[in-house]
């Protein structure tokens, strides 16, 4: 894996000639940035723009990595839905990237990765046989197996129950540490636990929000996590959509 770059997006995005946001967003290298904001403000659009995916609008601006190298093939992506292919076993699912690129997959690495997310005993099962939390762990293993310096997470834990979500947050923080991570989330508690940097997106632009100085993942019960979470929530309730 190459050293993770910082990413910088600056510009305006329009849908049907109506501006969605006009933002200047920096994702510092090798750390977690959480992007929050009201629904429909364009959080996922920021992520899709950087990934080079269809957004249904027009972006006027630049997206530049700090090392000046092209971004192609340097970002891996995990969505809210696990996107596991139902007909493939768990291990074949996490190796799908190589198959899609036409490269022979490395089964040993995939097996190791499954063990790291605690799914070693489920390699041959179909996704249907797994719980929601296990499926998201498989999706995380697939994301990690891509071994890319930049990782984008689009509300990946939002459909999980509270306990599973907390466990997944810790696992992701551990396994993705050292990479440039963008986590799009609705949940102030999640941001307070995981963020090295917090950005709040609104129609006016992206605003930086202070985070506790303690290392991530922060304990749910830690006073600074609570303070950050409640201040964020109060602020978000006042942000216009």
């Amino acid at each position: 894996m190459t050293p993770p770059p910082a990413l910088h997006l600056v510009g305006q995005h329009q849908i049907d000639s109506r501006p969605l946001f006009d933002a200047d967003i920096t994702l510092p290298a090798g750390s977690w940035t959480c992007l929050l904001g009201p629904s429909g403000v364009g959080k996922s659009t920021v992520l899709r723009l950087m990934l080079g995916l269809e957004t249904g609008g027009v972006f006027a601006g630049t997206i530049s990595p700090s090392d000046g190298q092209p971004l192609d093939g340097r970002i891996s992506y995990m969505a809210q839905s696990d996107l596991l292919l139902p007909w493939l076993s768990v291990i074949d699912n996490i190796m799908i990237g190589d198959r899609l690129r036409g490269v022979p997959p490395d089964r040993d690495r995939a097996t190791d990765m499954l063990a790291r997310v605690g799914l070693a005993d489920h390699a041959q099962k179909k996704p249907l046989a797994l719980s929601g939390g296990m499926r998201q762990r498989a999706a995380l293993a697939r994301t990690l197996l891509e071994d890319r310096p930049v990782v984008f997470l689009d509300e990946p834990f939002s459909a999980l129950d509270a306990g599973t979500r907390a466990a997944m947050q810790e696992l992701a923080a551990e396994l993705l540490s050292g990479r440039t991570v963008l986590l799009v989330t609705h949940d102030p508690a999640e941001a307070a636990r995981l963020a090295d940097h917090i950005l709040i997106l609104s129609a006016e632009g992206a605003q930086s929000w202070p985070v506790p100085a303690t290392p991530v993942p922060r304990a749910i019960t830690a006073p600074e996590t609570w303070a950050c979470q409640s201040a964020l929530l109060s602020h978000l309730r006042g942000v216009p959509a």
Partner: protein
Amino acid sequence: MRRSDIPLAILLGLALWQGIVLLTDAPHYILPSPWRVAQAAYYARVSLLENAWVTTVEVLLGLLIGTGLGAATAIQLSQSKTSERLLLPLLVFTQAVPVFALAPLLTLWFGYGMGSKIVMAVLIIYFPVTSAFHDGLTRVPTGYRDLAQSMGARRLRFMRHVQIPQALPSLATGLRLAAVYAPIGAVIGEWVGASKGLGYLMLLANGRAKIDLMFAALIVLACLTVLLHFAVGQLALRLTRYAEGRM
């Protein structure tokens, strides 16, 4: 319907049939009794089997070729927006022509042998298979496309590993329709002009007022069709279960 109910249902059907014969007192050259039909079937067993074999081969080859061509067309259409734009309306337009009306023409072009019946079956199932499979191929969830794009997927690999497997339930729907249509195509082909096959045997029996033999041929045809539906249904179920990760 439970499988153990089938013999009972058959018995009930036969009883109804015999009842109608007795009640209406219809002459045997209008409505033969089940027993008479069974006798006719026994005497003509060799001919029935030979002709049933011909129809079976026509139907199976038609099904195989029609499904293959339909699936290939659907894949081709899903890979190119241009061919989709140009060919899809053309395909829909050809459906306005009743395939049965083409039967005399097909006999003229492909002869009285199996060829014209196979082409007839192929033509009649080609569109349902193409249409159903194409529908599935183009309805790939956006999430899969996004993920594949972020992974740097090659187009043909995406088709093989994602697009085709997730469209298998749609192909299964097309196959079920094809199994209904294929025997119709083959038999109509035989009615228009043939020297073998169950459709031919029915016309021949009808011409000689051997209505009991005609009924026997009809029953054999119905049995073949039921078997075909069952076999194709099993295959379709397997395709769907595979795509859903249930096997």
